[in-house]
């Protein structure tokens, strides 16, 4: 896995509120994630994990509070987080390669075609590079979504249930890939349900409930306890 384009970056959430009409999705969330950490967000459905990740990706603006990226060198494309959501966020009618080249070009990645080919090899889709994404299986779509998030060598990666649709081999591949980017200094924040090869990478677990942080730990037993609770 290729090195980062920028120095490692952290994330700082200060008193973040997010309200949809009268409903609080997040309430007074304050969290400091250090550069290079691998953090798992756990919690029941509707606890606010996805909203927190979407705010971190800057797709959604918080109703109140402040988000910052300590250590971020500048506002260049590589300074923007790589984000994998529930949906693939790629174009079904374009081929795998066209999608990756498109997002590489938009983010000023040097040698977009070469970078796209490199990632297609890494995610195991090189043979299907000319096929339209609409012909892909759920697992293959997830792989292309992950490749899109990695295309600009981001210093922060945000993954919302990244194992969705992946078979056991795919999960092992993802765990290996995430481990490599994390060791290269990339800060990884992901929401997960239950323990897996991927959750084993976590150096910290944060539990959310009803939009608030209810537990935050780095120690072994508590970490495992939060991770096993994640799918409840």
């Amino acid at each position: 896995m290729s090195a980062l384009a920028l120095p490692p970056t952290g994330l700082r959430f200060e008193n973040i509120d997010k309200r949809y009409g009268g409903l609080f999705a997040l309430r007074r969330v304050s969290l400091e994630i250090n550069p290079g950490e691998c953090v798992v967000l756990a919690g029941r459905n509707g606890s606010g994990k996805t909203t927190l990740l979407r705010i971190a990706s800057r797709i959604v603006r918080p109703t109140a509070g402040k988000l910052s990226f300590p250590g971020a060198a500048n506002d260049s494309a590589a300074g923007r987080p790589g984000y994998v959501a529930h949906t693939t966020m790629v174009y079904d009618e374009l081929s795998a390669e066209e999608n990756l080249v498109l997002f590489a070009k938009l983010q000023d990645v040097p040698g977009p075609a070469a970078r796209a080919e490199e990632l297609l090899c890494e995610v195991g889709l090189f043979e299907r590079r000319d096929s339209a994404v609409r012909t892909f299986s759920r697992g293959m779509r997830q792989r292309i979504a992950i490749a899109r998030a990695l295309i600009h060598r981001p210093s922060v990666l945000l993954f919302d249930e990244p194992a969705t649709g992946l078979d056991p081999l795919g999960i092992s591949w993802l765990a290996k890939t995430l481990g490599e980017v994390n060791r290269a200094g990339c800060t990884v924040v992901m929401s997960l349900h239950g323990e897996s090869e991927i959750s084993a990478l976590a150096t910290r677990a944060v539990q959310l409930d009803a939009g608030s942080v209810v537990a935050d730990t780095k120690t072994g037993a508590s970490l495992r306890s939060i991770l096993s609770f994640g799918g409840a």
Partner: protein
Amino acid sequence: MALLSNTATLLGKELRTEFRSRELLTTTVVFILVVLILFSFAISPTTEESREFGPGLLWLAILFAASLMLQPCFLREQSNDTLSSLRLAVSDPFAIFLAKLIANTLFLLLTEVLMLPLFAVFYNIPILPKLPLLLLVLFLGSVGISVAGTALSAISAQARMRELLLPLLLLPLLTPVLVVSATVCVALLDREPVVHWQGIGFLAAFDLIFLTVLWLFGEYLLEE
């Protein structure tokens, strides 16, 4: 520079997607063709009536076809949440609008250029003498329709009843463009053609004002 390069990249994507599927172009061309033919047969206008009412019918057909064409503009970005990935990737969100409105204008102009000879034949109106000015009016009118339509498409794509909302918002907003474009075209296609520069100036001003508003506030239209 980033705005221009992002716009060029996204415009390439819009054109590639459309020329691969030809969904929008086919729908628009067929719709305008059907409307022009139906009106021609239903009214059977004399040459004088054609000169008077033909341009209005042409612009009405263009406007309705445009509302069909603009509907999927941002709706397409909803299915896989690609609008979010674009917002994450581009340095200036205006590039997303600019690429879409240039693509929409090109599709609309292409349709109009294809339809113009048929319009001349069905309504027995000689268009060649004033063709350059006619093309200028078509260009300015199409830009106006595309700018306003692209902005409203972004708004309506996130709303409930989205299929109904776009025409409901678009048609009243574009009434001035329709009226002025038709009036200028009627004067151009008259037996003794007159150029309504005031009308052409109005269309240019409409385009410029809406483009500026979109540039200033477009970012907010893309937010969840």
